């Protein structure tokens, strides 16, 4: 098992191998992602029972919660990919990290947007300085910082390393930020404005949500594969195998 994992890891380090294998893997992520999201959306929006307090407005949870979960775990994945790059100098990891940043930021933005839209009917305002909303906003700032830093560096290698260092510092900080914001929030205003707790959700509301979360993760994997494939082609554009690939496509 361990040997197989090690072999996979070393192969993953080869951009050419990744490019070829990911073309075969891609549909295995993309099709289930589409299926999960269609089933989850239709079930969640049309068939799940309405909330007895919030009525139909709660249904945005099927976009909001998966996006929020993804935004947080994407940051961790980006930092881990960055660490792999810093420690073992694996270029593929740097490219994966670079492709995660904008995707994570987009999910973060979607979570904030849907949160604001959800807040209007339930809380009466678009924005409340609720602990979770605030820590999501700060997470978005962290993503912006990493992306701005990567953009500002003049060589690809320093951009990747700087982004990796910053995302690791950010990863250590995320729990501290999260808990200090929650602590600040409980001091400033009573926590009456809690979102629906997931654990108390009814089964027929929860299942479509879980399907949506799985669907979002699969979508995330699909997007990363696609973006990383582009990164591979761009960074290896002067290598022979890419030239041959382009020629082969041109001849076809």
């Amino acid at each position: 098992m361990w040997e197989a994992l090690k072999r996979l890891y070393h192969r993953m380090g080869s951009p050419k191998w990744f490019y070829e294998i990911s073309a075969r893997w891609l549909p295995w992520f993309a099709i289930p992602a589409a299926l999960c999201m269609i089933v989850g959306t239709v079930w969640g929006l049309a068939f799940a029972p309405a909330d007895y307090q919030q009525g139909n407005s709660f249904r945005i949870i099927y976009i909001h919660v998966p996006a929020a979960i993804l935004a947080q775990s994407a940051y961790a994945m980006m930092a881990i990919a960055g660490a792999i790059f810093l420690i073992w100098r694996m270029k593929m990891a740097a490219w994966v990290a670079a492709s995660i940043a904008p995707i994570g930021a987009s999910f973060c933005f979607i979570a904030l947007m849907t949160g604001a839209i959800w807040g209007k009917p339930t809380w009466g305002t678009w924005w409340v300085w609720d602990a979770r909303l605030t820590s999501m906003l700060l997470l978005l700032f962290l993503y912006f910082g990493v992306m701005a830093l990567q953009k500002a560096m003049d060589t690809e290698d320093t951009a990747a390393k700087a982004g990796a260092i910053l995302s690791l510092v950010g990863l250590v900080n995320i729990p501290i930020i999260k808990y200090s914001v929650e602590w600040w929030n409980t001091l400033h205003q009573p926590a009456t404005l809690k979102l629906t707790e997931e654990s108390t959700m009814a089964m027929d509301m929860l299942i479509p949500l879980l399907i949506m979360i799985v669907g979002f993760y699969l979508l995330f994997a699909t997007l990363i594969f696609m973006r990383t494939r582009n990164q591979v082609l761009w960074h290896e554009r002067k290598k022979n195998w890419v030239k041959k690939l382009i020629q082969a496509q041109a001849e076809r």
Partner: protein
Amino acid sequence: MSLVVATIKRDLVIAARNPGEWLNPLMFFLMVLALFPLAVDPDPKFLAKIAAGVVWVAALLATLLSLDALFKADVEDGTLEQWLASGESLYAMALGKVFVHWCISGLPLTLVAPLLALMMNLPEEAYSALFFSLLLGTPILSLLGAVGAALTAGVRSGGLLLSLVILPLYIPILIFGASAVYHAGIEMEYAGQLGFLASFLCIAMTLTPFAVAGALKLNLSR
């Protein structure tokens, strides 16, 4: 170790001969504070309410502005290469540089802040909380900021970028620092907040020099 001590001495001498280096952040601090009564409301009661937060925000911005120059000169004139070639640990070097930065930005701010808080009509009970929260908090600002400064040292117009990168990381310190002062002002216990700041300081002191050292090495490949 002698190289670290020599660098600390050299930087302190440079700061002593260029008073602007430590005076400018202080003046900036004062000016930012003056903006709030002018822009919002000069009513003493209102000022007393916002004083804790405003003083902390101003201190944070003043530190942020002075950070940009932290490693710039050393990167540009080749001192950084000499450090690396000397075999001296970059970890110690980073700590030394941060110490000097704190001496010329955080420490004066901490000493002057109670005086300026007077202008903001901060309640009397809150002065010691303000002093101790800044004493514990400003070194963390310098330590975290040094990571950003090292990352952006070689980037042209890195100042704005530095703020973008570092500000989100400053939030916990701002929350605990300002809340310590606020709670002292309404005569509540604030030792907990200071305890949190102290523990953040310990974490930052052990971990950030690694990140600073790693980030400094990036500037060599340019």
